[in-house]
């Protein structure tokens, strides 16, 4: 690691904090621009999707375990399971597959 981890952490904190606090302190009225609102609305779904796949396949040494974990997570989340149960189920699948 060549660069200073504290500088990385400070940048991460500074940017996160500004994002969180600027609208809360500056905006008193609703954002009217439809494209901006739509863009901000879609951003988390694309980001989290892109981060999840195909990375979940390579998270362990066994891509099949990752794939089964992904399928289990999608199914459970689709059926309405919460954050904690879905996360634990994905883990449990990888754990069980490791014994096969």
């Amino acid at each position, binding site marked *: 690691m060549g660069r200073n981890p504290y500088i990385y*952490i400070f940048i*991460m*904190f500074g940017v996160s904090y500004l*994002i969180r606090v600027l609208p809360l302190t500056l905006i008193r009225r609703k954002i009217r621009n439809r494209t901006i609102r739509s*863009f901000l609305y879609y951003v988390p779904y694309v980001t989290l999707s892109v981060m999840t796949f195909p990375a979940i396949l390579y998270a362990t040494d066994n891509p099949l375990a990752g794939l089964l974990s992904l399928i289990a997570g*999608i199914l459970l989340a689709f059926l309405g399971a919460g954050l*904690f149960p879905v*996360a634990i189920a994905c883990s449990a699948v990888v754990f069980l597959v490791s014994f096969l």
Partner: protein
Amino acid sequence: MNETGTNIEWFRRGLKNGIPIGLGYLAVSFALGIAAKRAGLTAFQATLASLLCNASAGEYAGFGVIASNAPYVEMAVITLIINARYLLMSASLSQKIPSDMPFAHRFLMGQFITDEIFGAAVTVEGPLNPFYQYGLAASSLSQWALGTCLGVVVGNVLPARVVASLSVLLYGMFLAIIIPPARKSKVVFGLVAASFAASYIFSILPVFSSMSEGSRIILLTVALSLAAALLFPIPHEED
């Protein structure tokens, strides 16, 4: 939910409702701690990052940036892109507090905006008491920092298959955030599917697969979100 009460009552209410959120955070941030350790961070540095940043996907991507020793500007850009949703949540919360709310509260409330705390805070009927948000944060984000610390310290003494299992916890959490809205909205469903496909294609195409993971996430997020915003603008809110 009853919207009356003193600040202390709201704080206690927040503490209580934050407990289940905290349990989820404890498990998920444990996996985050393992990622932090892989990136070369100490327990102190990782815990500090969690205490300051309070962001799952953002920190995870940030630790990836640190692991790849990427330029500082990449950390700034990827944090901005991945945490951009907090802009929207912060904007939404700004509508839920009285316009004469002191700035000290605004500065503090902003720090505690996470997907889950925001979700709990917006379910309050009427104006939001900042002490409810502080209560939620105290009982949940403390677990976030604790789990991150434990992940770094204990992560490497666990058996390999347990660590492998925990490494998918975060992905499970991401799925729990993106799939329920995809079920309700065909556009979000299509967008998630398109994102999976594009991400996979980019990971194998020669030109794009040589980009850093962070740059790929930024490029795909901006391109796909903008396309979706132009093709399928969301309807105006009624309130």
